[in-house]
């Protein structure tokens, strides 16, 4: 592993136990930082609006990303379309701290993800299962997150993805070595990484949860399931009281195992974002299926 890759994995380690919040302007970025976010994801529209508006969702305007970078002292992340090498080159040029090669934007390539080894800037990617996570890590991602189903305010898919990844890791730990190659083959995962996970009992990079987290209880649930931190997209700034909810989700992510704190911070937050039943989304409109 290169020194740069190690440093990029290290930054994700510094974000652990924290909340990364989607923000669409300077004002929201400041609210997020003030609430105790460990990083912000700068984007033009939160996932629930992307879902509503339809059409092609692309990388955000560099002007807006630069403004947010100038406004906060915490790391700034931004999204590129899956496979869009040039959007990634542009974000790297802007000096963002992390690039999210994200299924929330409309994919630019239906076969290939970005070769993230070619970029000194770190990447985070989404996954639904261990095979997908290890493919992204194989391509050079230095942080992972569940895909969940972004913009729904429904945590069920994030739970499914986190449970699947954790359960497959436990499976690997208990496998005799001769079974690892077949696991690699059946799950489309690089063999060397499968061996590593079997040996260490964890992913080689930090793994957060994302996609549908809307309440402090959702964040704590993901942490109890083994997540190392959470991304909250539409859940904060599409709720009735963003600042208060943001602070509550930060507390819940730290005290995920303390029901007394969770009860306190969950009280009187006002309306959560409007939720969406997954079954009501047309098959070709789900974000989580994007990615190869």
């Amino acid at each position, binding site marked *: 592993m290169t*020194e740069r890759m*190690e*440093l*990029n994995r*290290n*930054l994700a*380690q*510094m*974000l*652990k*136990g*924290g909340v990364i919040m989607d923000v669409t302007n300077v004002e929201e970025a400041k609210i997020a*930082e*003030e*609430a*105790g*976010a*460990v*990083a912000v994801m700068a984007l033009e529209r939160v996932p629930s609006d992307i879902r509503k508006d339809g059409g092609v969702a692309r990388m955000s305007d560099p002007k807006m990303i630069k403004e947010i970078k100038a406004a906060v*002292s*915490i*790391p700034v992340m931004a999204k590129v379309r899956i496979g869009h090498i040039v959007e990634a080159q542009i974000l*790297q040029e802007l*000096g*963002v*701290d*992390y690039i999210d090669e994200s299924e929330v934007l409309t994919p630019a390539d239906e076969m290939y993800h970005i070769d993230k080894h070619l970029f*000194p*800037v*770190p990447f985070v990617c989404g996954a639904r299962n261990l095979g997908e996570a290890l493919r992204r890590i194989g391509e050079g991602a230095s942080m992972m997150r569940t895909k969940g189903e972004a913009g729904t305010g429904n945590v069920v898919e994030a739970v499914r993805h986190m449970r699947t990844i954790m359960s497959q890791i436990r499976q690997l730990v208990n496998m005799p070595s001769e079974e690892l190659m077949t696991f690699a083959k059946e799950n489309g995962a690089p063999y060397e990484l499968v061996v590593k996970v079997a040996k260490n009992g964890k992913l080689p990079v930090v793994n957060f949860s994302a996609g549908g987290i809307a309440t402090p209880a959702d964040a704590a649930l993901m942490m109890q399931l083994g997540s190392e931190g959470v991304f909250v997209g539409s859940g904060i700034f599409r709720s009735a009281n963003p600042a208060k909810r943001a*602070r509550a989700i*930060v*507390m819940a992510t*730290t*005290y995920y195992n*303390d029901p007394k704190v969770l009860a306190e911070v969950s009280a009187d937050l006002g309306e959560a974002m409007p939720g969406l039943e997954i079954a009501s989304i047309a098959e070709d409109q789900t974000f989580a299926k994007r990615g190869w």
Partner: protein
Amino acid sequence: MEKIGVLALQGSFAEHLQILGRIPGIEATAVKTIDELNAVDRLILPGGESTAIGKLLVKTGMFPVLRQRIGEGLPVWGTCAGLILLAHEIVGETPYLDVMNITVRRNAYGSQLDSFCCEQIIPAFGSDPLPLVFIRAPWIEKAGQEVEVLAGHDGRIIAAKQGRLLVTSFHPELTDDKKVYNYFLRL
């Protein structure tokens, strides 16, 4: 047995606890509450985001307790974000604990693309080269008279001590090297 706490609100606390767990003769424990804070003999403030950890310290009521315990002589080691939390002055920002007479610049080296690692001999910690990992690191711009500068890099202060307070702008918890731990445990 001496009880070494690691503030576990956010950041690289698991890494610190893992290394402490390999050092014989001490007990390592995560600190998330006032009671846990009151029970430790030494405390490490880990790397992470200083804004997030600072706000959580206030929100949980741990902030005044920690300040008081430091006043009473609790040995504390701050790595990166922890260094920022201890500082008397943060360029352009309001300080947090304000217990160590240093002026700190956050993200001094730049964005993640400017994060770096190197090796350097720091005599206070030992005669062998020490691996230094800097992640969006701060540096110390100015140190008061009561502060002993332990190391510099490219003309900037990266490690210092004042009484029983130790700060490093780099992350020994991201390496296998226990030298700085051994130094802190004797402080």
